[in-house]
Every structure is written in C-alpha cells, then in structure tokens.
C-alpha cells in the first residue's frame, strides 16, 4: 500500500505548456497533491512558439468581445503577478493609407466597451513614441499591449508549483490511461529518456495538452473536435521597435510586430493543417514572403534587419460540440468535464484559450477539480505573485562593471536571480555572449530548473537564442552539462541535435548574414569539433 500511496495524487496534470504549469500551480497552491507530467520539456509545444504578446484584447475587441474582456483582465493581472515575465511596452494600432480609417472608430468603441483603454493619437505622436513605425500612417490608437515571455512565465509557474509540493516529471509521456471501469484512475507513463514505463495514480487527471490534447483525450476514450491552425513567425536579430505595432483592421496575416527581450518578432500567418502534421511544422517560403511583405508595412526597417530564424506554432482551436464541421470555431476557453460529457469520471480537459488566458484556464480547471474532490478552496493565483516577481522593497540595482550579465539575468529570473552564484571569476564569465548568460546562471538552471539538455537550457536562460544561434555558447554549455551529468558522449550527441535544431529555424531564412553565420557555425562544429560524426542525430525537442 505504501508504494501506491507514494504514487497516488489528488491531481495529475498532463502537459508542460503554460496552461499545464499554471494548472499545476493552482492545484498545488490550493493544497492538492499534484503531479505534472510532460512528454518532452516545458514549453515544447505552442507555448514556446507564439508571439509572446501580452494582448490587451484590442485585437479581438471588434470580433470577439468575450475574448477581449478576458484578455484585458488577465493582462492587468499578469502585470502584477508576473512582473519579471512582462514588459509594459504599450501597443499601437496603426491605420495605413491602404486601410479604411473608418474602422478605427468601430475599433475604439469596441475596445472601450470591453474595458480596454484605447487612445486615438496623432500620427506624428505615434512616430515620436515609436520611431520605427511606418511613417505613412494616417491613424494610430494606443492600447495597453505588452510583451510576455512564455518561457519565463511557464518556468515561474512550475517553480511555484514545486514550492507548493507539486512533483514534476518532464520527458514522461502518457501512453495509456489506467481505468477502473469508466473512471480514469491514473496514467501509464513512458520515460522518453530511458524508455522505462511507470504508473501514476490520481483521483483527477487534467488534460492540458494543447493541440496534443486531442490525442490524449482519445487515449482516454473521449473525442474532442480540434482544428490545428498553424501560425508562422519570424524573429529579427535585434529590437526594431520598443512598442507593439498592430494594424488597425480586421485581424489578418502578419499584422503584429512584438518586441521580446533582445529581439522582435513578426507574425503570424494562419492556415489549417492536418492533425498528423502537428509534430512536423515547417515554415514555407511563401509564409516567409508574406511575413516580410506585411512586416515591412508596420516597420519599414525590417527590410534590412537580420532575420534570426523562422518558426511555426499550432493553435489549439476547438469546434463547439454542437458543430462538428468546425465552422464556428472559438478562441475562447474550453473546459470539458468528461464525466458529464462522455461518461468518463475523473477526467477533465482544459483547452482552447490563449497564452494570455492561461491563468484563467488553470483556474477553471482547478475549480472543477476541486468541486469533484469536494475541496472548497478559492483561487488566489490572480493575487499572489509568481516566484521571481515578488515586490522588491527598494531599488537595489546598482550598475557595476561587467554587470550586464547580472542585469540580464535579473530580467530573466526576477528576484530568483539572487540564487545565481556569480561570485568567482569563472562563474561570472559568459557562456552565451549574445544573451549575456553566465556560467553561474547555467549552473542554476541545471540545478533547479529541470534542465537536462541544451534545449532545456535554452528555454530557461536564452542560451543559444541570440544572434549567433549557438555558435559560441552551445559547446561551452554542453561542457557544463557534461560536467553536471557526468557523461561527455551524451553531451556531444546533445550538442549535435541542438545545432540541428538551431539550423532548422535558420534554414527558411538562410540568406545574408544568417547564412554567413550558419556557414561559420558549421566550420566550427563540423570542421573543427568534428561534430559531423553525430550529424544523424535527431532534432532536439
């Protein structure tokens, strides 16, 4: 019985995206014994492949008041609870000569109705505020958009879940549900690193698998009508804009340019893709063309700005249950009680929604779980700050020489950066020069943030996300991982697969400086380091 108790939880949450991590946080904060399982790494799915836009909701105001209202509410909440993941940049909705200026009026009215501040400003004022904006604009509205780092946000939720006693198993994939009659009582997991199979039991299993939730639900015997929608984006080498720039028109392709940490990104396209392609997203030349063409209309200087990489994510759009054709698709939150819907007790799916509403999704799912467990505990995740975002009493930031790395780390980890030990010269030296990541920060990530390989490390620290895309930092980081894991061979394989993953994103935009960089990188890793002997390694996930 002891073994069963150890393996028994109140709740198992499936999915290490922001919704899963947020749900695990909410559950554990409310005192539920929680296990979070993820088949690969945190943010490996759609959470890590979006705009990083802190939506004000303005974009949805005209077409979807409900989403708009949710967005602005969560927007204001995230500014408080996730300060270190959010950048309060504000956003512009610009009208270009080819757009209908009359739409601006409808837009502003809809925003105000949803509770979104929307100030019509003079085009000249817009240019003053955001010099990179297309100077031929004829109208501009200022809204409380911002930037949010989905990697940081997910990590912070996972860290808080752990602080509240939750357990986390990354690289553990649900291969089947354990049932007692129709009731789901647990999951069978395969360790995707070692291959061993383990069983975990819970009163409630919450499916937060995003678009992959479709398959997870099917394993449990439930059918969810999902429509994968691919969205492609381009990342530029540096920040062209410091405010979010949107087009003031009905949402269309490539009409949002978002500043995110050291870079900016344009997106997205939108196209339906077959379900069996969702694990193999590729950005096509046509998509790159659309993104470049439309992006330059927002900020003309994008035309000669280096493009670091291209990537695509998959939105989990859910068709209403009464409309299997998928014509009426909502971007709203879908919380399914499979007990009442499909006769499968103990199983809940939380899906739909957006990065912006992850916390609300987690709240709904946890509310339902608590109801089923007979626990009457209120949600507090909208008030309690995430780890790293706690209020600091006094501004203690003093500029020190060689302190850029420290300041960059503070931006990434908030108050948790105090856990990074850069006290000796070696620990203070940089692993990633583009993104200013120190040896100490890498060691912190390895020790405390479920970091086993380079791609985990990238998501926790930005190692390899900068201009050189791993050229200088990947081998240094691989060395530190080898030391921590005690295995050089594994690290070499990891390095090869990481470089392949970097190349995958560079390939669709491999011209100009990006191609030079890639060529130089291949000289180093294949020519000098001999990594081509590992060149058949799979792309890391």
């Amino acid at each position, binding site marked *: 019985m002891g073994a069963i108790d150890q393996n028994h939880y109140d709740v198992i949450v499936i999915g290490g995206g922001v919704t899963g991590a947020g749900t695990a946080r909410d559950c554990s904060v409310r005192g539920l014994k929680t296990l979070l399982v993820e088949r690969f790494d945190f943010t490996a799915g759609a959470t890590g492949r979006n705009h990083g836009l802190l939506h004000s909701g303005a974009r949805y105001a005209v077409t979807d008041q409900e989403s708009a209202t949710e967005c602005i509410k969560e927007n204001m909440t995230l500014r408080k609870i996730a300060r270190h993941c959010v950048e309060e940049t504000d956003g512009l909705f610009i009208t270009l000569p080819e757009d209908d200026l009359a739409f601006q009026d409808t837009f502003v009215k809809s925003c105000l109705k949803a509770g979104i501040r929307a100030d019509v400003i003079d085009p000249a004022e817009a240019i003053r505020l955001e010099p990179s904006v297309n100077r031929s604009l004829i109208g501009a509205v200022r809204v409380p958009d911002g930037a949010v780092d989905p990697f940081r946000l997910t990590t912070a939720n996972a860290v808080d879940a752990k602080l509240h006693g939750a357990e986390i198993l990354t690289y553990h994939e649900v291969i089947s549900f354990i049932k007692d009659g129709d009731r789901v009582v647990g999951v069978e997991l395969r360790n995707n690193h070692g291959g061993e199979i383990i069983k975990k039991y819970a009163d409630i299993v919450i499916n937060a698998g995003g678009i992959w939730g479709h398959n997870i639900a099917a394993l449990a015997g439930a059918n969810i009508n999902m429509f994968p929608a691919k969205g492609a984006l381009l990342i530029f080498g540096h920040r062209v804009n410091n405010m979010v720039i949107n087009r003031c028109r009905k949402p269309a392709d490539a009409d949002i340019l978002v500043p995110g940490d*050291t870079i900016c990104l344009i997106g997205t396209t939108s196209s339906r893709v077959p379900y069996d392609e969702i694990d193999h997203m590729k950005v096509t030349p046509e998509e790159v063309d659309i993104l470049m063409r439309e992006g330059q209309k927002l900020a003309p*200087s994008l035309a000669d700005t*280096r493009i670091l990489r291209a990537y695509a994510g998959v939105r989990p759009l859910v068709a209403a249950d009464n409309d299997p054709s998928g014509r009426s698709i909502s971007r709203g939150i879908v919380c399914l009680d499979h007990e009442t819907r499909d006769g499968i007790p103990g199983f809940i799916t939380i899906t739909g929604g957006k990065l912006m509403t992850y916390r609300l999704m987690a709240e709904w799912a946890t509310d339902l779980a608590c109801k089923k467990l007979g626990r009457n505990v209120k949600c507090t995740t909208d008030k309690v700050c995430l780890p790293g975002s706690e209020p600091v009493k006094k501004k203690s930031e003093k500029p020190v020489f060689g302190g*850029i790395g420290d*300041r960059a780390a503070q931006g990434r980890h908030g108050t948790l950066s105090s856990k990074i030990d850069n006290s000796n010269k070696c620990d203070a030296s940089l692993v990633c020069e583009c993104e*200013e990541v120190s040896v100490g920060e890498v060691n912190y990530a390895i020790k405390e943030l479920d970091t086993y390989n380079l791609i985990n490390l990238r998501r926790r620290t930005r190692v390899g996300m900068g*201009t050189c895309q791993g050229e200088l930092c990947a081998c240094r980081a691989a060395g530190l991982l080898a030391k921590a894991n005690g295995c050089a061979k594994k690290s070499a394989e990891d390095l090869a697969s990481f470089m392949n993953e970097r190349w995958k994103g560079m390939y669709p935009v491999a011209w100009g400086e990006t191609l030079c960089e890639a060529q*130089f990188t291949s000289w180093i890793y294949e020519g000098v380091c001999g990594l081509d002997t590992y060149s058949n390694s799979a792309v890391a996930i």
Partner: protein
Amino acid sequence: MNKEINTNENNFEQCIKCTICTVYCPVMAVNPDYPGPKQAGPDGERYRLKDPKFFDEALKYCMNCKRCEVACPSNVKIGDIIQKARLDYSSKKPGLREFALANTDLLGTVATTMAPIVNGTLKMGVVKSAMHGIIGVDKHRQFPSYSGQKFTTWFRKNAQSKQEEYSRFVTYFHGCYANYNYPKLAKDFVKIMNALGYGVHLMDKEKCCGVALISNGFKKKAAKQAATNLDCIREAVRRGEPVLGTSSTCAFTIRDEYEHILGMDNSDVRDSVMLATRFIFKLIDAGKAKLVFRDDYRRRIAYHTPCHMEKLGWSIYSTSLMKMIPGVDFVMMDSQCCGIAGTYGFKKENYPYSQKIGEGVFRQISEIQPDIVATDCETCKWQIEMSTGAHVENPITIIADALDVEATIAANK
C-alpha cells in the same frame, strides 16, 4: 537586403561572432574590467537597443584605436558603435579633467603665450601630484612642452606672403600639436611643399579636429568645431586645393569620425582630405614630382604604425617616402598600439594599462636601437619618447631634414 553592404544602420548585425576583434584589442589583453570590442560593440548594442540601462560604464576603457575594425572580416564598425554608445548613453558627465584635456585649442592658446612658465610648471613634481590627486591626470605623464610662438603666428609673419609666388596650392590642416607644441613640423611641411612647387594656404578658421572632445564626451562642441572645419575645407576644395595634414589622427577624425560618430555628411570633401605623405607619394608615383635628398643624411629609422594610421591604411605612403632617402636604414616595426591613445593615457586610472599596452612597442624599439623612431601621430611620439627615451619624429620632419632643397626645387621646376 537590396541595400549596399554596410550602408544600413544595423551594421552591428553583420557581426558573425568570429571574435577576431577581441584578439586584436590592445585593452582586453591588459585590463580584465574591459568587456572587449565584441561584447562592448555589437553584442552590447542589442541590449542597449532594448534598454539604455544596459549601457556599461566600462566602455570608457575603449581607446578608440579601431584595431578591432581593421581586424573585422565582416566590416563591422565596432569602434564606432562603442564610441557612439559612450556619447549617447553614458550617464557620467565629463569633469574638469575631461574639459582640460579635450579643449586643446583653448589650452594651447593660453599656454603658448606663457610657454616658459607653463612648461616649467608642468614639470614640477608638486604640480604633477596635485593634478594626479585633484583632477586625475597621472603624475607619471610627461606633458608635451608648448612653443613660445604658434605656427600660425610664424606663418603669417614669415611665410604667408611668399606663398602667392606659386601657381599650385595645397591647404594645410596643421592641427593643434604642430601649432602649439611643435611648429617645426608645420614649418617642415611648408618647406617640402614649397620645394615641390606648391604654395601653402591655411584654413580661415581652423579648429581642433575634435578627437579629444569626442573621446571625452563633448559631442556638441565637437560637432560645432567639425562644422567650422568642414566649411573651411569646402572652401579649399572649391579653390581646387587638397587639404593636407601631418597628423594621422586629425586626418582620420575629419574623414571618418565626423560622419560615423558625429553624423555629419562629409562625403563631398572626404576624398580631398589626406595626409601630406600620401599626397606627396602619389605625386611622385605619377611622375609629377621628385624629391632629391642630401648625400650626407645617415639614419637608422624604425617606423611605428599609429592605430589610426592602421585604420586609414596609409602607413605605406609614409614609409615608402622615407625609404626613398638613400642614407636611411629602414626597419618596419610590428604594428602594435603604443598605449597612449590621445588623452586616454593621461588619465590616472588608465595610465598603468596604457604603459602595459605599450610594452611590445617599447621592447621592439630597445631591440632595434634606431636613431629615430618615425611615426605620424603626435601622441604616439609623446608616449614613445617618455617611455623609451627614443628620439621620435614625424616622417615629414625626417624628409625635410634629409631634403636637398635647392636640388628638389630645380627638379620640380
């Protein structure tokens, strides 16, 4: 993408992180507090674009030698990026020391009128200690002495009227050093040009090129002086005269820094501004002029390449001219920074690094044992003279000293 290479504002993105610049940076090798050209330049720029709070005051350790730019295979203007960042983002306001070091015209004008007193005072230990402690000018540093008479005063009294006897002209940008400290250099220039059959004009209102203002944080004043200089240069170019200098840093500043750092368009006159040695070499190379040298001139000469000369790529002109002197035993030194970098080495926090950087140059000189070290930069001259005791001259002075004036005049008739 359709733009010409290096014309867009995102020049720093052409960095492919090869890190060669860090190998060529003289500061990085001696000062661990300096993050190095790659970090301070293209890498840091991304962060500064994100938020100016990421400006690192350690960028003040950059000497602006531009050796990183010479080394860069991708043509990234690393030094410019760093200098611009310092001017645009530094929160440290220039102090009295910076004011005193940067305003060479003001100081020069005052000092030349009281040269004996100033020269004597600047050599006094107690004064040096006071300057070290109070304003932060290093006490070990020897100051260049001031001349009792400015070159321009001498020129107006003794040479100006004779210049109109010539039919061809050049305009001379003498710079502060030749005017206030070492008029012999300027007089040597006039001597050579006259012998070659060229009359010398001065600019109406020459101001200091501004290099010290730029490096000490006085961007506005530098731009104002640059505007005055460019007006005068344009006037000379309209008269059909090239504008020649005898200081590599002045020429470099007017040609490159005016545009890259101060953002002033000098493209219409840039090609007309050059070092005298380049102008003279090109005349000789085209068969349009001849230099005839004395038979009795015998010297072992070692040439030190100033950093800005390296950046201009012009040391070949100065060295080729000196090699034409029959009695010269010429040794080309390995191109390394001497460490002074203008006013940089005068600051007490930089002095030890400055001397450490120069060690390679000093060692070479002690091994070569030359009679004269030749170099086109006055601050290199100060540094080498102070640190090695060697006799240092500008190539123009060496050529003038070796010149057979009468024979040269006859050959160019």
